C-alpha cells in the first residue's frame, strides 16, 4: 500500500490498525488523524480485516489471505460501530511500552463474538417485564435491551458525540478527545444520555468486556498469542501447581492455553 498520504504521527501510541490508513486513502475526513506507527500494528493486528471502510474505499488487495480467518465481524453490521468499538477498547487498554493494547490483542473481535453468543443475547437472564433501566445499576441489569443491543446503541452514541463535538469520527479524533468522550459515559453525563440504557452502565459493560478480551483464554478470540497473559505473568491452566505452591520465589512459566491443556486433538 501507499503511505504517501499518511500524516506524521502526533504521538507514539499505536492506536490504529492498518485498515485505518487504508480508509484515509479513500475517505476524506475532517478530523485530526491521531498518529500511529504502521509497523507492529501489522504484525499484531488483523491482517484479515482489510475491507474498505464506507463508500469509496480502497481497491487495494487486502492481505486477508494471510490472517486469522476467524477475525471477521459476525455481529456488528456497521463498520462505524466496529471502528468505534476498536478505538474505544484501545483507550481502555492502550498499547504502550508494557505491551500490546486491545486492538493488537484482538479484543474488538472478541467482543463481536461475545455479542453474537447467548451472553450478548441475554440468553440466561431473566427477561420478563416490566423493565426500568434507570434502576440499573442499583438492582443489576434492568434494561429491556440485551447486551449486544446496548453495545450498538452506546457505540453509536459515542460516535455521534465525536462528530457533533469534535468534528470527526471517534476513531479519527485525537486520543485526548476520545478519552473526554469516554469519561462522559463513565460519569453518566447528561450529554451521553440514551434511551434505554444509562451511559455509565454501557461504559462499565464496554470496560469489563474489554478487560475480558485482554485476559480470557485465546479460545474466545482475544488475548492474542496469550500476549495479555505474558504481560501479566499468568501461565494459564495446568493440571496443578502442587510443586510450586510453597515456593517463595515467583515462578515464571511460558503460558499455555486451553487448547494445549485439552490436548488440541483436532
Amino acid at each position: 500500500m501507499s503511505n504517501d498520504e499518511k500524516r506524521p504521527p502526533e504521538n507514539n501510541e499505536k492506536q490504529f490498525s492498518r485498515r485505518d490508513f487504508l480508509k484515509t486513502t479513500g475517505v476524506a475526513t475532517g478530523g485530526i488523524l491521531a498518529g500511529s506507527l504502521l509497523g507492529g500494528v501489522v504484525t499484531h493486528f488483523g491482517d484479515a480485516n482489510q475491507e474498505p471502510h464506507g463508500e469509496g474505499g480502497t481497491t487495494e488487495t487486502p492481505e486477508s489471505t494471510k490472517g486469522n480467518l476467524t477475525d471477521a465481524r459476525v455481529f456488528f453490521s456497521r463498520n462505524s460501530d466496529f471502528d468505534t468499538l476498536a478505538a474505544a477498547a484501545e483507550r481502555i487498554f492502550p498499547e504502550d511500552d508494557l505491551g500490546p493494547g486491545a486492538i493488537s490483542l484482538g479484543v474488538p473481535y472478541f467482543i463481536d463474538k461475545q455479542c453474537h453468543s447467548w451472553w450478548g443475547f441475554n440468553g440466561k437472564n431473566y427477561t420478563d417485564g416490566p423493565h426500568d433501566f434507570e434502576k440499573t445499576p442499583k438492582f443489576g441489569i434492568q434494561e429491556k435491551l440485551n447486551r449486544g443491543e446496548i453495545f450498538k446503541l452506546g457505540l453509536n452514541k459515542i460516535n455521534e458525540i465525536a462528530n457533533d463535538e469534535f468534528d470527526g469520527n471517534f476513531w479519527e479524533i485525537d486520543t485526548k478527545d476520545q478519552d473526554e468522550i469516554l469519561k462522559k459515559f463513565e460519569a453518566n453525563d447528561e450529554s451521553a444520555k440514551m434511551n434505554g440504557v444509562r451511559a455509565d452502565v454501557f461504559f462499565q459493560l464496554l470496560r469489563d468486556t474489554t478487560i475480558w478480551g485482554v485476559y480470557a483464554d485465546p479460545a474466545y478470540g482475544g488475548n492474542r498469542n496469550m500476549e495479555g497473559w505474558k504481560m501479566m505473568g499468568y501461565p494459564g491452566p495446568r493440571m496443578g501447581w502442587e510443586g510450586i505452591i510453597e515456593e517463595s520465589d515467583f515462578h515464571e512459566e511460558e503460558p499455555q492455553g486451553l487448547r494445549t491443556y485439552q490436548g488440541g486433538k483436532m
Partner: protein
Amino acid sequence: MAKKLDKVDVVVVGMGWAGGIVAAEMAKAGKKTVGLEKGEHIKREDYIGVKDELRFDNQFQIMQELKKDTVTSRNELDETALPIRTRKKMQIGANLGGASVHWAGATYRYWPYEFEIRSKTIERYGEDKIPEDMNLQDWGITYEEMEPYYEKWEYTAGISGEQDPNAPKRNKPWPNPPLKESPSLKLFKDACKELGHKPFQVAAGNMSQNYENPDGEKLNACMYCSFCTRHGCDFSAKSDPLATVIPTALKHDNFELRTRANVRRVLYDKDTKKATGVLYVDENTGEEYEQPAEVVVLAAFAFTNNRLLMLSEIGEQYDPETRKGIIGRNFNGQYNNAFAGVKGFFDNKKFNLYAGAGAMGAAITDFAADNFDHTDLDFIGGGAIELRQYGFAAISSSNNIKEGTPSWGADYKKESLNYAYRALQIWYTNNTMSYWHNYTDLDPTYKDEYGDPLLRVTYKFGSGTKEIMEFGVEKCREIMEKMGADYIKEDSIPEEFDHEFSGGHYSGGVVMGDDPETSAVNNYLQMWDVDNLFVVGGSAFPQFGGHHPTPTIGALSYRASEGIEKYLKDKKQLVKAKTKTTNA
C-alpha cells in the same frame, strides 16, 4: 393431568449436600427413596479440560439460569421489588450436587455461643444488649448436641484441617492434615502471632492427601490448580456430593435419582395435616408427575425451600406489619454486609497467586463469636479474619489498583500489571443477624416460566450491621500493617444492601428453634405443623453464624436424617415444643 407414580418412603427435593446426605442415609437404611433434582445429571467428567476463567468465573456457567426463575429484591417494605436478572448479581448452584459443587471448601463449625446466642448474650451482657429491631434467637440445639453430626459430615467430606486454638477441643482429629502453607499464608500467620492472635490453617474441603471416606468413596489429593471456587473439581479432590454422598446413595437399589425433575408443589392434605407427596415437571418433556411419599424432604437451596412452602400454602406466611407468621421470617445471609477487609499492596514481594485451592487459607478466630468482650461494642458476635489463596486467573488478577487510580487507560494498565501478583486481601467473615423487617414472600408482579410468582426478598441493614464491618476492617488493617504492606486499601462500608446475591450465603426463612411461635421446624428440621415434612438446609438458620455455612448445613442434614428415620418408625412429632418464654 399429572401422572401419579407409586408411593415411596421418602422423596427428597434437591440433590446438593443437604439432599444428598439425606438420600445416602435413607438409601443405607433401606428406605425406598426418590431424589428429585431440577438440574442436569452432571459428573466429574464435565469438569475435565475446562479450566476456563471466563466461562465459570465471569459468565457463571454452572450457576442456575435465570431465564425461568429468579428472585425479586427490595430494601423497604413500601418499595417495588425488581427481579435480579443476571448471574453476576445472582449465583445459585444448579445441577446435581447443587451449590456444593462450586463451593470453595472453607470449613468451620459454628460456636457454642452461636447456637445459644440469645441466651448467652443475655447471660453475659443483659437483655439490653439486644437491639429492638433484631430477632435474635437460639437454634433449639446446642453445640454439644451438634458435635457428633459435625464430625460425621467432616469424615464423609474428608476435611483437611488442624485444631483452631480458640475452638472447643475436637472429639476426633480432622480426618486429613491441613493443606500446604504458601508464603502468603505464612506472612499472615507471622503477623497475627506478633499481634498476639492465634492463627491456624483454615480447614478445607480440598483433600491434602488421598482419602477414603466411611462410605467407601475415594477422593484424591488436591493439585492446587486454582480452578476451584465457582468451578467443579475435575479430580474428585474437592469434598462435594458428586464425589461422596450421591455415589453412595446410587449404590443402593432402593434409591432412585431423577434429574431435570422440577418440583412445583408439595402436595398437602389440610385435614390430616400431612404432606402426601410432590408435584414435579419433567423438564425434558414438560410432563407432570405426582410422586406420593410417606415423608417429604425439602432440601433445596434456601430460596426454593421458602418458595415451595409458600406456593404450597403450608405454614403461615410472615407479615412484617403485624410481625405474625413464620414462613419467610428471619431471612438472613452474608451479602455486602460481610467479608469487608483490606487489600495490601507489596512493592517488593511477588506471590504465586495464580496457584491455590478454594479453601487454602489461614485464619484467626480471636474476633469470632463471643471470643472477645463486647461490653463496649455496639454489635453482637463476630467472625474469622482470613487470608485465602484461592488461586486467581488473569481477569481477576487485573483488579489490583490503588484508591483513586482510574479503572481504565494507561495508568490502569501499568498499575494493574505491576500489582497482579503483589496484592493480598484479608477479610472479616462476620455473622449477620435477622431483623423484623427482613423476610421473604411471593412477588406480586414477576412470575416464573409456569406463571408462579417469584420469591421476593425484602432486606436492609439493621442495628450493628455497619458497626461490625467497621470493626472488622480496622482489625484487618492492623494485621495488614504488620504484614508489611506498602499501601493498604480499605473496603468501603456499604450504605445499604445492594441486591447482589453472590457468594451463596443466604439462609433462613424456615428457621429452627424450640418454640413454634418463632420457628418453623424443630431441631430435627421437622415442621412443627406438618409431622412428615422436613425442611433441610440453610433455610433453617435463625441468623447467620460468623463463618461459611456449609459444614453446619451438612451436620444438620445428618441430624435431620436421624429424625426422618425416627419419624418413619414412630410417625409422630419428635420434639415437645417449648412455650414462648425466652424470646420475649
